[in-house]
Structures are given as structure tokens and as C-alpha cells.
């Protein structure tokens, strides 16, 4: 009802200072909760780093290869050690669903980036790859072909533009989204054929660019197979390899952080609980203060639902506005501290990736919804109790 809604609004306007304080308190509470939840999920997601995020369960690399799993680089370090491209296929392992071969070459003086920059050129088999192409954020409207390259998010060049590698012209076919995985961010991806064609231009021909050789495989487990089973099967069937699983990588840090995050979660719950108590205390007082008016409304025929509805609408407007403000503030704060936060996390070995947009929006909606719900609940009980009283008692200032 329009008149009751405008009454609710005007009541908020009648006590500017109090409404402002209520809105501010709810804004702080829901801002903290929204920011905390978003950061928490972002960090937790970011901790699940490496090829697990890329969609693989494990990686098979030459035994002697350095697999750097402490820092952001969670792929095989480029080495001269190589595997035969068909080792896994020949072994016919039931626990493996898919295996994507990769050739990784780290080069200098390639003409990309600054003069001495080490650049990872990564060869993939487009038909078998399942960890790179799903991350394509934008691409040309055609198949990947010889001479095409895909850029990690850390490299900037327009789609379809020319890119010289060792003096040879390539076309920027696509760009990857942000994954937080080091090699992905700075890497340049291409088909095996494109990479092989570059071998002649390199100072010395890397061993992995020989036909039939690869740097390693990213492996997806068959449904129902465990990492332990697969690891055992691979190691007993194939000589000279090592198996790296993603989970082990940062589990120590992750556990510590998980405990911390649980603590933050508990704090957030307390925050919401105290907000709920505060709102209901405040609205008990507001209802008491306004009982004469409520009694008058009741006397002229307002139904109980209309009286309760008016008070609830008033509370929901205040706490809902508080929630919107809080989320807005939270976004501003996160934007403001983004740089130092990302820097700090990457320093302790956690490549940071913001939560994706749909989930961030869901969190924002949840924070605002919770704030509004707290308003509704806080106002409902005192309003419901008052609405039960006789109109005459309310008008006389009792109840």
C-alpha cells in the first residue's frame, strides 16, 4: 500500500540521526561480511593453485625435472629432459582418462619482451589439450592453425596482430583469462608444428623439439580412479618419470589459512548476530515510541498485517540501504587495497585471483539480502507484539 510505504519512509526521515546511525551500523557490518567472504573465497580458490585449477589432476614429468611447486610456477620447469610422446598411450592405463602432452622451451633473446627476458614457449596438441584452450577468453573466429600463438593474460597484444618470435611472423590467435598459474600468465602457446618450426631459429636446438618427444603430460583421472591408484599405475608401468599431484602443493599453508578463515567466518557470524540483536532492540524502542501512532492506525481500521508490514518495510529499507552501502564500501576498499594485497599474497607464494564475477555478485546479493532479512526479523517481533494490543491501550501509550 502506497500510503503505508510512504509513512514508513517518512518515519525514517523524521529521525534523521537515528536512521543514519542504523544505516551506518548495518553498512559496516554487511561491508565487513561481504568483504571478508569475498576475500576468503578468493584466497581459498587461489590456494587451489596449479594444474588442478587448470582442470588436470596430476602431471607426469621426466624423473629429473625440477617441478617447482612452492612458488606460483606450478608446471614443469623447462629442462633438457624429455619423455617419449607415446609413453602413456603405450602403457594403456585404466586410471587415466585423458593426458595432454606439452613441450616447454624457455628461451632468451626471442624478440619478445625485454632483451634478456626468459620466455616460455609452450607447445600443445590442440586436439588433446584440455588445460589451455578452456581458458581462452577471446579468440579469432576460426580454428587454431600453424603460425598462430595464444598469449597468457600477462602479455598484451591485440587479437589478430603480428608477433615476431625469433624474427618469424606469428598471428595472435587468442588470449587466456587470468588463472593465477605462473606459466599460464606469461607463456606463449602454440601447436607443436608451430613450435617445431621455430627450432631452426634458436641458438641451439632444444632436445624437446625433436619429433616424438615431450616435456610432460597433464593428466585427468578416469572417473572413480584415485590419485594414489593412478600414481602407482604410472610409476610401475613407465620408467624414468615422476608424478606430481596438485593437492600436495601448498597443503601446509592451505591448512593454516583454512583455520584462520574459519576464525574469520566465526567472527562474521558474531557480527551478524550482534547486528540482529541491535536492530531488534532499536526497533523495540521505535515501536514503543510510536505506539500511539500504531494505535491510531489500528483504530481507523488498519489490519495487523498492515501495521506489522509498515514497520517491517521501514526496517528493511533502512537495513537494505545499509547493506547496499556496505557492499559498495567493501568493493571500494578491496579495489583500494588490491595492489598491496595481491603483492603480499604472491610474496608468500599464493598467486592471487579475484573471485569470478557471478560469485562476487552472489555474495553481494547475499550480504544485502541478509542485512534486509535482519531488518525484517528485528522489526517483525516488536511490531507483531504491538499489533496484538488493543488499539485503545496503544493510543493511551501503554503496551
Amino acid at each position, binding site marked *: *500500500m*502506497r*500510503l*503505508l510505504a*510512504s*509513512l514508513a519512509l*517518512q*518515519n525514517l*526521515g*523524521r529521525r534523521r540521526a537515528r536512521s543514519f546511525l542504523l544505516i551506518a551500523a548495518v553498512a559496516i557490518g554487511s561491508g565487513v561480511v561481504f568483504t571478508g567472504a569475498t576475500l576468503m573465497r578468493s584466497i581459498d580458490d587461489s590456494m587451489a593453485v596449479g594444474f588442478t585449477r587448470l582442470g588436470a589432476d596430476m602431471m607426469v614429468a621426466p624423473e629429473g625435472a625440477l617441478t617447482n611447486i612452492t612458488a606460483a610456477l606450478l608446471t614443469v620447469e623447462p629442462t633438457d629432459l624429455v619423455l617419449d610422446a607415446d609413453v602413456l598411450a603405450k602403457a594403456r592405463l585404466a586410471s587415466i582418462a585423458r593426458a595432454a602432452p606439452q613441450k616447454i622451451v624457455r628461451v632468451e633473446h626471442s624478440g619478445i619482451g625485454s632483451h634478456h627476458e626468459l620466455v616460455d614457449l609452450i607447445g600443445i596438441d590442440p586436439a588433446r589439450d584440455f588445460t589451455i584452450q578452456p581458458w581462452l577468453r577471446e579468440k579469432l573466429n576460426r580454428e587454431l592453425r600453424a603460425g598462430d600463438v595464444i598469449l597468457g593474460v600477462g602479455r598484451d597484444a591485440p587479437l589478430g596482430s603480428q608477433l615476431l618470435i625469433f624474427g618469424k611472423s606469428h598471428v595472435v590467435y587468442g588470449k587466456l583469462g587470468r588463472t593465477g598459474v605462473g606459466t599460464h600468465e606469461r607463456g606463449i602457446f602454440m601447436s607443436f608444428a608451430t613450435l617445431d618450426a621455430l627450432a631452426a631459429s634458436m641458438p641451439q636446438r632444444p632436445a624437446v623439439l625433436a619429433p616424438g618427444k615431450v616435456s610432460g603430460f597433464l593428466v585427468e583421472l578416469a572417473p572413480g580412479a584415485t590419485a594414489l591408484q593412478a600414481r602407482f599405475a604410472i610409476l610401475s608401468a613407465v620408467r624414468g618419470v615422476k608424478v606430481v599431484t596438485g593437492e600436495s602443493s601448498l597443503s601446509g599453508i592451505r591448512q593454516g589459512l583454512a583455520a584462520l578463515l574459519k576464525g574469520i567466518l566465526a567472527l562474521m557470524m558474531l557480527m551478524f548476530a550482534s547486528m540482529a540483536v541491535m536492530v531488534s532492540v532499536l526497533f523495540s524502542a521505535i515501536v514503543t515510541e510510536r505506539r500511539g*501512532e500504531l494505535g*491510531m*492506525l*489500528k*483504530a*481507523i*481500521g*488498519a*489490519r*495487523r*498485517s*498492515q501495521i506489522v508490514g509498515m514497520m517491517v518495510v521501514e526496517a528493511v529499507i533502512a537495513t537494505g540501504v545499509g547493506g547496499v552501502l556496505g557492499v559498495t564500501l567493501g568493493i571500494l576498499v578491496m579495489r583500494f587495497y588490491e595492489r598491496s594485497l595481491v603483492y603480499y599474497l604472491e610474496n608468500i607464494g599464493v598467486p592471487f585471483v579475484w573471485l569470478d564475477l557471478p560469485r562476487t555478485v552472489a555474495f553481494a546479493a547475499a550480504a544485502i539480502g541478509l542485512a534486509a532479512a535482519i531488518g525484517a526479523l528485528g522489526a517483525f517481533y516488536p511490531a507483531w507484539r504491538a499489533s496484538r494490543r*488493543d*488499539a*485503545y*491501550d496503544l*493510543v493511551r501509550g501503554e503496551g
Partner: protein
Amino acid sequence: MLACRQVSKSYRTERGLVTAVAGIDLDVPAGRFTAIIGRSGSGKSTLMAMIGGLSRPSAGSVTVDGTDIWGLSDNALAAFRNEKVGYVFQFASLLPTLRLIDNVALPAMLGRGQGASGTYARAAGLLERLGLGAYLDAYPAEISAGEQRRVAIARALINDPSILLADEPTSDLDEQTEIEIMDVLRAVNREVGTTLVLVTHNLALAGQAQQIVHIANGALVA
């Protein structure tokens, strides 16, 4: 037709049980002008509140047009207050944040199924009849106490009630304003045939009523 049967009201207080109304029988035929008189604290307001559906009796019944109003559900009782009764309080009772026209229209807007435009036209017409046509958009604080009481009467009339209950509507007003307000109430009673129950301690006013009910200590005085 309005009928009270052994209607009583007691309040639990710190000093024990206070009986404000103690078993009153009262019949008011439709369309009649009835005055209730009695000393302050005799139970007049409490009786009016029980008749108007504002205060639940501790015992006894109030029947309006054959309906025992205190046997109704919450919503049906709200509808009764909304449609059947116009209540004019002893004190200022307008909602301060609403314009006069909104205050008058409010009871109709609270009820079911009335178009807003028709309601507002009616509200404006009532305010005009009561000499407040120039103040439709004003707020209660911008007009005098007597004018506010007239707006309260307009509000009480917006839903064409069958009973108009006025509890000392002029006690805090000057004599000239009192006469004006009483003229309005009596005109409604006479012209529309609305039952009028008026609480007053002005015996001259009471003398104009068709029926006088005298209350002392919560009971009728013969």
C-alpha cells in the same frame, strides 16, 4: 442498532484490579443522537473504546447491527473499525507526516477495493465541506487545533460509517470552535442519519441529544 450487554472492563494495575466499567447495559437505536455524561474518570472513554472495537471488554458483549463485534476475528474486527465506525478522539490524532488529504483518505486506502482517485475526490469534498478546502496539501502542524479536529471528523466520515463515536471532541477547544464542531457532528447525524454517540461534560450540549446516558463509577445512573 447498537447494544451493550453487561459490558465491563477491569485493568490490572500495581494497586490491584481497577474496574473502569462495571456491567453496563445500553441500547442505541440506529440514527439516534446519544450523549454520554459523567465525571472525569467515570469510565466514559473506556465504554466508547469498547463500543468502537478499540478495547476488548473483560466481560459482556457489544452488538452492532446484530454482530457481536468482540467475537469477530482480528481482520473482521479491523474491517468493522474501518467501515462501520468513525472515531473522533479527545486529542489530536492525525498522523503528522501525512498531508491533511492523505490523513482523511487513509481509512479508505487501508480498506479493500477502493479506487484511489475516487477516494481522494471524496476526501477533498469532505475537507471542503468542513471549510478546509484551501489546506488539502498542508500538514497537521500547519493548522490550528480546531481545524485539526475538523480534519479528524472528515477522516471519521470518509468510509460512510453507520456509527460516529466522538469522545469529548471539543474539550480542549475554545467555545466558538466547540459550537462549530458540534454543528458539524449534528449535521451528519441529522442529514445522513449516522448514529452519533457523543461524550461530553457540557450539559447544554447533552441537552440537545435524544438520549442521555449518565455514568458514575463505571455504572449507569438511573
